């Protein structure tokens, strides 16, 4: 089994997995390690970070000094290929042109999907995050609790490798002893932010990121992750031994050729391939899940992008892991006489309650950080510290005017200059040049801090995707039309971010800051910008009010599962990737169980 083309698809598989990112990678890993035969469909091309990551390239070797463009939105060296908010030939539409009502849909059409470029921030949802409705009466409770997911958080963290500490803060769960890797030392600006944050009552603690700060314990971990499965243990031990610890240079977003951070393509897919149980079919654009007259799924129809031809693959189980909105699209396009409104949609809720993360940021220049002695701040290629939401009690007491919290990410320091740099007008007024410019560039370089808020959006009935009645993509597949609306909770949350960041920056000694726009509606980033979209196939305890049950199994068709963020019934401020993987592992375990029992 291996990387295949449509001609070498075997007759039938135990499980067809649509998608190869955090959800598809984890699902395929868990299933194949336990002996299931899996076919993975990926809409993009094969991609190998070991040979394709531009790790040490400097911007002068790239077009436009590596500045982001619509074709490479996060910069030329970003790992994403064939991706962005616009994918040629694969449009989407927005129902409204009104400001604040549009949604931007990010796709990454490549093996591993967006796990190749993500920030590696790996935060657990806490107990409140699974029962938000019980806490404040808004949104929905999940049919599962933190305790149901905790063992899977443990497993995922052990498998992928996450640095961080256990601080015991409210709704910010600890990991069991020995699971987390040691965090890297904080950068100087991060230390200053920590000190000055204390006066404002804002905690700063080590970030949790999926980067190996030391090699994984390949002798002990495989037995913990795959008890009683000698073959899986042997494969994983061999694979883990080949992952190298971070060498403290180059941004994670470029991808990691030495496999020191988590990407599906460096952590999930290689061991899954080594089992011999995985076939990967790239450039396969899933169109719909097919069902038999009895209402059982039979497989997936896809377009081979190389030829434009339609093919069908069969499996006993279908797992959708295409990314929340693409999964909703496939379900809605899976129309049959049994399911005229799309598969899994008897509740009418497929595509409904799409949530992104609330995002806003503000920064300033810090005189204390001027003219520092040169030293490397590359570090782990991303955040070393962060601030978990710290005002749970005030919020519950109704003192804040918005119901859900946000965490804070930091950008400080002396990163490699890249792309277009805006210098602004200097302290002398006007546009500095010549000797003044040289002096200011040396003095101010590395003296900036930017705080980025990442907040929880409450699901609402006005934020959803549906099939556009007219538009199809270049493969003839109906596309999504988005509807979007922020509630006052998100807008007020952003206003709080702006006030907090501006106070914090001032407390760090900044005297030269643009004041934030008092209108938070202008500061909030458009829906989809943060690329944390989840929902659209939410899980619940009643078939009338949810798309899947607590096992991410669609209520309507018992051999169809949703493994990606589609099942999220809320979108905590915690970045969704770790939770997606934990749920995918749990779902895959359930599938294995049900297959063994003959229930699928």
């Amino acid at each position, binding site marked *: 089994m291996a990387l295949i083309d449509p001609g070498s698809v075997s007759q039938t598989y135990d499980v067809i997995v649509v998608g190869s990112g955090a959800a598809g990678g984890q699902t395929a890993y868990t299933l194949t390690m336990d002996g299931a035969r899996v076919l993975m469909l990926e809409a993009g091309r094969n991609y190998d970070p070991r040979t394709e990551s531009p790790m040490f390239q400097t911007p002068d070797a790239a077009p436009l000094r590596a500045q982001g463009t619509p074709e490479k939105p996060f910069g030329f060296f970003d790992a994403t290929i*064939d991706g962005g908010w616009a994918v040629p030939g694969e449009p989407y539409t927005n129902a409204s042109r009104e400001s604040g009502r*549009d949604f931007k849909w990010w796709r990454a059409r490549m093996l591993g999907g967006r796990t190749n470029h993500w920030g590696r921030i790996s935060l657990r949802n806490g107990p409140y995050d699974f029962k938000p409705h019980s806490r404040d009466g808004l949104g929905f409770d999940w049919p599962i609790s933190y305790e149901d997911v905790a063992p899977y958080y443990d497993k995922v963290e052990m498998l992928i490798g996450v640095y961080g500490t256990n601080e015991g803060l409210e709704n910010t769960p600890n990991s069991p002893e020995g699971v987390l890797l040691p965090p890297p030392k904080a950068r100087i600006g991060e230390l200053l932010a920590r000190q000055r944050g204390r006066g404002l009552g804002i905690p700063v603690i080590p970030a949790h990121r999926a980067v190996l700060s030391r090699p994984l314990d390949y002798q002990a971990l495989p037995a913990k992750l795959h008890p009683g499965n000698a073959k899986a243990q042997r494969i994983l031990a061999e694979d883990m031994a080949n992952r190298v610890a971070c060498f403290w*240079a180059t941004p994670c977003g470029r991808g990691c050729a030495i496999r020191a951070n988590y990407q599906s393509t460096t952590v999930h897919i290689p061991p899954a391939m080594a089992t011999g149980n995985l076939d990967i079919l790239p450039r396969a654009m899933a169109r719909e899940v097919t069902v038999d007259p009895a209402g059982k799924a039979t497989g997936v129809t896809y377009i081979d992008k190389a030829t434009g031809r339609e093919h069908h693959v069969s499996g006993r189980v279908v797992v959708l892991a295409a990314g929340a909105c693409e999964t909703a699209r496939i379900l809605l396009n899976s129309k049959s006489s049994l399911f005229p409104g799309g598969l899994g949609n008897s509740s009418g809720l497929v595509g409904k309650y799409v949530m992104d993360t609330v995002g806003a940021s503000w920064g300033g220049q810090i005189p204390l950080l001027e003219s*520092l*002695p040169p030293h490397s701040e590359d*570090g782990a290629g991303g955040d070393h510290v962060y601030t978990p939401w710290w005002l749970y009690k005030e919020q519950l007491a109704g003192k804040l005017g918005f119901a859900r919290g946000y965490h804070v990410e930091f950008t400080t320091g002396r990163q490699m200059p890249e792309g277009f740099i805006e210098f602004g007008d200097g302290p002398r007024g006007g546009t500095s040049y010549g000797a003044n410019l040289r002096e*200011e560039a040396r003095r*101010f*370089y590395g003296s900036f801090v930017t705080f980025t808020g990442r907040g929880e959006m409450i699901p609402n009935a006005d934020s959803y995707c549906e099939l556009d009645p007219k538009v199809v993509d270049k493969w003839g597949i109906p596309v999504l039309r988005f509807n979007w609306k922020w509630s006052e909770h998100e807008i007020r949350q952003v206003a709080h971010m702006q006030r907090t960041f501006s106070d914090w920056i001032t407390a760090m000694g900044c005297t030269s800051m643009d004041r934030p726009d008092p209108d938070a509606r202008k500061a909030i980033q458009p829906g989809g910008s943060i690329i944390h979209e989840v929902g659209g196939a939410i899980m619940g305890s009643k078939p009338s009010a949810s798309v899947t049950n607590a096992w991410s199994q669609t209520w309507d068709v018992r051999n169809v599962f949703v493994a990606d963020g589609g099942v999220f019934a809320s979108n905590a401020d915690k970045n969704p990737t770790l939770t997606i993987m934990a749920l995918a592992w749990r779902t895959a375990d359930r599938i294995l169980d049900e297959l063994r029992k003959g229930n699928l």
Partner: protein
Amino acid sequence: MNPNNPVRIDRRVAIKWMLAVSAGAMLARGRALGGAAAGADAPVEAGYGTDPNLLKPYKAGDYWALTFNQAQRRQAAVLADIILPAEGASPSASSIGVVDFLDEWVSAPYPDNVRDRKIILDGLSWVDDESVRRFGKPYTSASDSEKISLCEEMSRSTQGQPDPGSAHAFFRLLRDLVASGYYTTPVGMRDIGYVGNMPLAKFEGPPAELIQKLGLADEVKW
């Protein structure tokens, strides 16, 4: 004035050195400012595509035809070297490829570049015309002090005055582009003290003396 330039000067000066340090900041400028730059999400014709080879070294002109004629190149080189002349061990802007970068930038098909192209090309013409009007010769033939006097004037924030406003906007953009082209090279990085992009066995964090100096010794313990 460049409508997307966020600098709003109201007696206070916002110092920027806005590095593309985070994923968010790497976004095309129109988007990073929260506005919807027209067409920023539309597929682009004649760019480098969505799957360029990321490992191969590129030079200006590899993907799209360049724009500057000989006279514009000479003029851009003179201005670039006024903005960043050689100093000590640091070479001048034009000697490390900054003019090629400017040409590549204004020639690219992306929305930000198309917008900047007009500002830069119009600005170069304006500078030449103004030089002829004031000094009776094109800019590159003017004396050093004449050349600098015009830059000095363009560098000043001149809110409220009609015509020179666009010259100031041009000069600020040109300065940002020259500095961007310069400090994103290994030579420029060395000049400002960027250290990194080299594998390390251990991440040491900030130097101990720096932590002491800023009074942050208590902050390193978790």
